[in-house]
């Protein structure tokens, strides 16, 4: 397994290097106007030249690229040039990540617990009310655009329960709706997949055999069906946890949460090259680490899965 992980890590570094280089080059293709900001119209030619020069954008591209690699290699994410000029990118991210992570982890926890529980009960309660309610919930959540139910919740629930419409760090009561709204969609997803995997397992011969042998249904469900159904879901868990730091564009916008949601889009729009590069670096790393961790976790939980060259790759 160590050999497998090492090989994957080397591949990851190469991938990361390629992604960063592509993003770096693409950002240099953006129009000059974007670097001058909203005051573009009021600047004269001398100022425009000076600003572009001060940003280092007049250097040949290979010189800029060399400086960039050097900076990244030394662990320096650079200084924002447009989103918050003069503020180190690390400081911007440090102030935003805790919000997205906090809301993300809280909603993910709720989703995992409620979604998996709902999925189990739906798989195990053929024809019962809970199954019908669960199905209606999953269909509704998947068919109604999230933006609509997010805004309905914000308008009506806050009015009915006299809750603040926006998020305030010093008012914990204002944290509830964003977390619940965020968890609605993922709860439905977890419930749907859990139900599906459970039903798949329930139809397998070993389950029928266990039942025929006289084992209690509850015991079969708990010891065999649940565990086997849970393994495929575990693969995506590390990525889901790590990607909570990217935040939710819509929830954070609606509730005024100063998290990571929408930061990448805004950084690109403002042509804040160091900020874009730092975010891409982080997201790419998370993607790579998340996938690797998912594979490893599956191998640990399911003894049938072997990682490594001699045992065959998955």
């Amino acid at each position: 397994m160590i050999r497998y992980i090492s090989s994957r890590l080397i591949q990851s570094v190469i991938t990361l290097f390629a992604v960063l280089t592509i993003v770096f080059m693409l950002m240099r293709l953006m129009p000059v106007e974007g670097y001058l900001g909203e005051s573009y119209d009021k600047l004269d030619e001398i100022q425009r030249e000076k600003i572009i020069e001060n940003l280092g954008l007049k250097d040949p591209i290979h010189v800029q690229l060399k400086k960039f690699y050097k900076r990244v290699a030394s662990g320096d994410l650079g200084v924002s040039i447009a989103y918050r000029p003069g503020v180190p990118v690390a400081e911007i991210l440090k102030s935003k990540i805790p919000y997205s992570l906090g809301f993300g982890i809280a909603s993910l926890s709720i989703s995992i617990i409620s979604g998996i529980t709902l999925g189990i009960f739906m798989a195990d309660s053929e024809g019962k009310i809970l199954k019908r309610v669960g199905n209606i919930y999953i269909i509704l959540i998947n068919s109604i655009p999230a933006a609509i139910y997010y805004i309905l919740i914000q308008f009506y629930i806050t009015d009915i329960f006299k809750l603040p419409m926006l998020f305030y760090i010093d008012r914990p009561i204002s944290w509830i709706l964003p977390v619940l709204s965020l968890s609605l969609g993922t709860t439905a997803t977890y419930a749907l997949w859990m139900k599906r995997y459970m039903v798949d397992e329930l139809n397998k011969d070993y389950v029928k055999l266990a039942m025929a042998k006289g084992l209690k249904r509850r015991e079969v469900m708990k010891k065999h069906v649940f565990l086997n159904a849970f393994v495929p879901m575990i693969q995506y868990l590390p990525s889901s946890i790590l990607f909570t730091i990217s935040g939710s564009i819509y929830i954070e916008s609606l509730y005024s949460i100063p998290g990571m949601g929408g930061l990448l889009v805004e950084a690109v729009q403002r042509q804040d090259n160091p900020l874009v590069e730092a975010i891409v670096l982080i997201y790419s790393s998370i993607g790579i680490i998340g996938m690797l961790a998912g594979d490893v976790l599956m191998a640990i939980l399911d003894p049938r899965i072997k990682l490594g060259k001699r045992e065959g790759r998955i």
Partner: protein
Amino acid sequence: MKKLLIFFIGVAVVLAGWNASRHNWYDREENELRMVYSGEVTTLNYLTAATANEISLAVNFVDSLVEYDRFGGIKPCLATEWNTSEDGTIWTFKIRKGVKWVTHEGKVYGKLVAQDFVDGLKYVLTSENNSRTANIVYSVIKNAKEYYNKEITDFNEIGIKALDEYTLQYTLNKPVPYFLSILNYLCFFPVKGQFLEEVGDRFGTDNRYILYNGPYVMINYEPHHRRVLEKNEYYWDKDNVYIQRITMTYNKEANVLAPEMFLRGEIDHVGIGTDIIHEWMNNPVKRNLIRPNRTNFFSYFFLFNFNPQFSEEYEPVNWLVAVNNRNFRKSIFHAMDRKSAMLTEEPYEPEKRLLNTITPRNFISAGKIDYTQLEPLSKFTNRDSFDEKLALTYKNKAIEELKGKVSFPVKILMPYNAASRQWANRVQVIEQQLEGVLGKDYIDIIIEPNPPTGFLERVRDSGKYALMELNWGADFADPETYTHPFRRDSTSSWIHMARGYEGENGYTIYENLVQRAADEVMDINKRYQLFAEAEAFLIEEAFVIPYSVGGGGYAASRINPFEISYSPFGAVSGRFKGLKLLKTPMSMDEYNLLYKQWERERSERLKGAEK
């Protein structure tokens, strides 16, 4: 499971009920103004900032040498008195004593002295600091441009000196009649040199890294979340600061959420957009909560392009011949029903927004006469340019003159920024309306949506338009400021390339008219008269079609807009000094009454000033 579910629901309901009975989120600190905003500032560095959002925040933290009263009159602020040399190039100011710089925690840092203005200007003129307003400084201050360009390295050679602790002197390149108005820009604001050294590159990056000598101190700043401004207890004019605390909460969806928050009493001021104005106007309760906003001094106009660089498919050569025909331009000038276009964003009182000149009304006065009422400009000011009969007369003349030289219909490319929904609506109306009046056999208007990224540089400044809506805001208190978009060195217009308007000295007739006005620096009334003649020429020859002023719209608000400083230029908008919170939102009737009262008082003030 069922029991567990019932238990959780029960707990949630009890908690929510307890919360609702215990808290009222509508409560607030006494004398607190609460607002929601959707445009976040990128910096608090007022010496480099130039956007409206940044300016409107900074003016609450640092004062300028002079300020505007609520009628637009200049009055002392950080300068208590001033005088100018006979030739108008040296200005000397006495700095107010006892003004204190405080930190974001409200602790006194030091006293304000004349050197602070010198330090501020040095920062602005150091090109590495990327000040967006350095050009305003070096357009008037002696040797400033040379310092910015590193041709001079000794700052003592620049036209600013602290003669003593409380005496400041500026030396100008040449006499500038509007110099006092320029001092209201952030680039002339003071800064404590010692503090600059302490914080280095972090200056202005958040509320801890600036000092305050203005009416408010920013005690809390969380970008994209919240700002809290508290009255500066050490402010030299604190008796005129009435609101104790201002809480601004960021919300990207403010246009959707903020009206509802206002109705719930969670905020005190909100703009009511075009998309919901009908609903508010037709609701008897909501109708009483809204009032108009004041218009601003941004001038919007349509400009003909004499240097077409657009694609061959839109026939730039054909366009160039057509646009150089005066009757062709005049036909479009008189065929454009600007009111129809304005109805897309101001459905109730479109006339209030329309502008018949480039310089807005009430911008500046020559004695008692408003600039736009000076002859020959007044003939445009007092008449709507839309005249179908006249348009058709010019059309027939143009067809006659262009026969065999131009292929009809003439393709007119009108690009717009697709990010602006209002702009998109406007061009669609204009296309239908113009083609309706002049006929599709005469013109073929092609409206072209463009992505917002790099729009100005890629489309406007590259000449990829035939007729396009542009805008300009005043930089100083002089009609010269509205000539800038039409200058030869402007990046967006090429009217100097129009055929048949060549004047003396290799410059066009219009350029000579402007230069003649700009050269008149001693007799202000004559100067304004000459600028009015130049502007009238621009409109008469239909190089440009004036359209509207900016701002306007509607708001539900507990703010009286007539209490704050009034000025068409500089750092004035957004200042909370002088504002009092109304007990109830201002209605339309109250607004109209106060507006008339304000106009009357202003007119009396102007008459008084004239005497």
